[in-house]
């Protein structure tokens, strides 16, 4: 019945713009604006040094988002593997020449901008998996043979990111990948078995962890044990959040952040700053916006007529949501400090650009939801 419906597969630019999904752009912009306000406050009521740069990046990224969205999904489909390979190579480059920051090699310095390839690699992995599963028949999903290439697509970048070492990002790639496998229709027993194996391999993982990672896990389990050492960040963050109360301390009035008790308030702990100043009301409002973004993204995914678009859009929403969950759970002391930014809100070029690229691809799925993509190519 789908083949009878021949809808705007060859839309004009104007038509495409009409169907871009401006609601999503609005939501994304709103969340970004919360970020601007928080960064303005983090600087003590000053656009410099963070808010102004962040706004500039966002505007550049927004243009990129629209361009990415307008590019035909078929082109993205064809570019999937080349992008994956470029991403993979840049991860190797990072390993070779990357700078060392925060005890881990993550950056490539192009002089004018520092790029964190692992951020883009996450998108590349989702794209690659979407393309792979697009081509694999549903019945084939029952066979482990067909899942093996997916594991390779996940495993190769994860291995390299682990080498950096960046446990947080590797786990996020793994989780996003597993979700993709689940969405693609892999049998349920595999996830149960996988869960058991993961639990069993925890002690092994512990053995291979870096000292700073072990410390983070330890202090997560008992942050007050070392209030001035490694547990300091999380204790101060909880104090900031808790002292915000229902209505918050008011814009520019967050004492914990203004007086620098809050570490890395412009990056990883931006949610804390926001919720200290705007309280439960502001915190829940931000979570509500995030929920709307998820729902919007899932709706786009479900409206897609091709498996690639469905998987890509859903995978990117999951990827985005993982960031949100991990960052916010971290600052509230629910999980160990892993060093993940809050996408669209935290200060940082790569994270902002990666998030907007992701939404650009989601909106490309939206515009081109009725495109016909061949099963094999």
């Amino acid at each position: 019945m789908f083949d009878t419906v021949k809808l705007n597969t060859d839309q004009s630019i104007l038509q495409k713009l009409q169907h871009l999904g401006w609601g999503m752009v609005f939501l994304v912009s709103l969340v970004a604006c919360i970020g601007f306000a928080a960064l303005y406050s983090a600087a003590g009521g000053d656009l410099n040094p963070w808010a102004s740069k962040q706004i500039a990046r966002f505007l550049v990224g927004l243009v990129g988002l629209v361009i990415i969205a307008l590019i035909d999904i078929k082109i993205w489909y064809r570019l999937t593997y080349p992008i994956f390979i470029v991403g993979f190579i840049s991860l190797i480059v990072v390993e070779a020449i990357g700078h060392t920051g925060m005890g881990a090699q993550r950056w490539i310095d192009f002089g004018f901008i520092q790029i964190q390839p692992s951020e883009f690699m996450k998108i590349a992995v989702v794209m690659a998996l979407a393309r792979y599963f697009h081509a694999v028949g549903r019945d084939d999903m029952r066979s482990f043979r067909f899942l093996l290439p997916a594991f390779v697509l996940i495993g190769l970048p994860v291995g390299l990111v682990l080498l950096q070492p960046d446990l947080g990002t590797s786990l996020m790639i793994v989780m996003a990948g597993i979700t993709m496998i689940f969405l693609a229709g892999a049998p349920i027993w595999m996830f149960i078995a996988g869960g058991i194996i993961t639990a069993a391999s925890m002690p092994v993982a512990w053995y291979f962890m870096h000292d700073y990672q072990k410390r983070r896990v330890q202090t997560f389990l008992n942050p007050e044990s070392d209030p001035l050492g490694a547990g300091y960040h999380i204790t101060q963050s909880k104090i900031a959040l808790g002292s915000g109360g229902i209505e918050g301390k008011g814009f520019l009035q967050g004492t914990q952040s203004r007086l620098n008790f809050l570490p890395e308030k412009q990056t990883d702990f931006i949610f804390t700053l926001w919720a200290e100043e705007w309280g439960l009301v502001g915190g829940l409002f931000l979570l509500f916006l995030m929920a709307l973004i998820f729902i919007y993204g899932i709706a786009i995914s479900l409206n897609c007529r091709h498996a690639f678009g469905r998987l890509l859009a859903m995978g990117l929403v999951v990827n985005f949501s993982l960031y949100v969950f991990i960052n916010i759970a971290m600052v509230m002391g629910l999980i160990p400090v892993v060093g993940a930014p809050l996408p669209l809100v935290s200060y940082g070029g790569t994270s902002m650009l990666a998030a907007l690229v992701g939404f650009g691809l989601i909106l490309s799925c939206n515009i081109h939801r009725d495109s016909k993509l061949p099963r094999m190519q």
Partner: protein
Amino acid sequence: MNNSGDRSKDFTRRAFVVGAFQGMALAVLGGRLAWLQLAEGGRYKTLSDKNRINTKMTAPSRGEIVDRFGVPLAINNQNFRILIIPEQTNDLAESLQKLTNLIDIDDRRIKAVIEKSKRSASFVPMEVADNLNWDEVAKIEVSLDDLPGMSIDEGEVRSYPFAESTGHLIGYVGAVSKTDLNGDPVLTLPGFKIGKTGIEKSFDKELRGQAGNKQMEVNVRGREVRELEEDASLDGKRVSLSVDAELQRYCQERLAEHKSASAVIMDSKTGAVYAMASQPGFDPNLFTKGISAEQWEALMANPAFPLNNKAISGQYPPGSTFKMITALAALEGGFSTPNTKVSCKGRYEYGKDRFHCWKLSGHGNMSITSALMRSCDTYFYQLATEVGIDNITVMAKRFGLGEKYGFDLHEERAGLMPTKEWKLGRYGQTWRPGETIVSSIGQGYLLATPLQLAVMTSRLINGGKAVKPWLVGYVDDKKMYPDQWPSIGIKQSYLDLMKEGTDRVTNHKEGTAYDARIIDEGMEMGGKTGTAQVKKINRADRARGIMNEDLAWKYRHHALFVGYAPLDNPRYVVSVIVEHGGGGSAVAAPIARDLLLETQKRNPAISDIKLSNVIEKPKQYV
């Protein structure tokens, strides 16, 4: 196509599962946020305030000490210091180097700070420089941002404008020692000073004031961002003294020619002390500005004990100034009458012992007044053998000898007026009558302070009123002295007799202090000389080779004089002791004359103690 449709449905199902997980995750986050901000909010609010609020005590300003005219004797000068907290600097040496470009600091001082920083905790503020002037403060203030870890601290430093003249009287302040801690939180303030001697010590509680509290918002590095709340400190009270500062200065300077001396000028009617000097003096500013090791050594090595206030803590045999007491004890006890005559042959025999009058050729026939005038010893030897020591001591105590007054300076000593019982208790020996004879002329065991002799003299000429001396007139506006004094119950005719005798000492050609009389009409003085034998040089001393000049000084007689003026309705009383000065008439009496003359000219008694500054406070004393 079917396959595709099934696949789409399966995806939708699975997408809803993923969506449900996301919803759950958001719900957990929202729940956690609500838990932290609602249920735990109060606790975290407290923790947040504890983080940012640094409560610190603020020091009260120490109360001023002023003289009776409101002239400041102890004040607080502004003291700007530069403090540095090593922890807040990137490089301590570099920061200090920057500072030297702005103001003059000794290289040694810089080195000392760096050395000290290695030994103390890095968050403890250290003083880099103090006593900065306004120019320096301004220079540093504007470039404070380039001097991380440095701050300007505005403190106070106690200053004594009259320096050496009031050293003993006012005393000085110093750092709080462990034994001073008594629970008053203000004492724990770094750099807080409390009174160590003099009025500063005895009225420390009143002068000290109460600490305030200041709540400062601090950032994570402990730097103060702003003030939140202040519970102001309560400044110390103002202490107004009975002293006349100019007279005090004159008094101190008048004694300066002697190695060791002291004098008291007081009001015989009220007990107010107008001046009280002890030579050598010391500059109390040395102690507040930081005394050097050499200066301290010099003070300690001085055989004349410059730090002792000899006017109240020096105990001397009163010598002949005591003779009025012996006379009154005899008269009151009925052992003699105003007409009792004694023939002086220059010596007095008692049993096997022989006691000499100072005039070996003898004074001839003596009455009480002529005995006082010429200070004949024999007359009093004769009386004493009949009166006995206990009666003499009872009389002495009625005149304020041998006891403490609870004077405004804690350094006061009681002196000594012996009794038979006392000697038995002290030495386990019975009193020998010869000792009474020696006591009658103020020798032997008897000891009195210059202040006590002034009080004795006051009671002799004020109609027998039991005045006690005092220095502090008012604490703020609270009056600290009584208006009336009880009588000591001595017959006025006897007192008149004493006055007649002491009048003749200075105003009769044959009087022992005639040469030191006051000739200015209406200002004439009366008084009594005294020459106290210190110690007989015994054989053991000689064996140790006590021959040199210094030790010889140590064993010379003390020169004493107690006097009053004017003759008609006397008001002012003076007592002077020149340690090892020689004779009372030649050495002590001229000083007493000058002091009484100056006192009468200034006439401090004419005005009450003023409670407000009439004299504009000088900006800076050195």
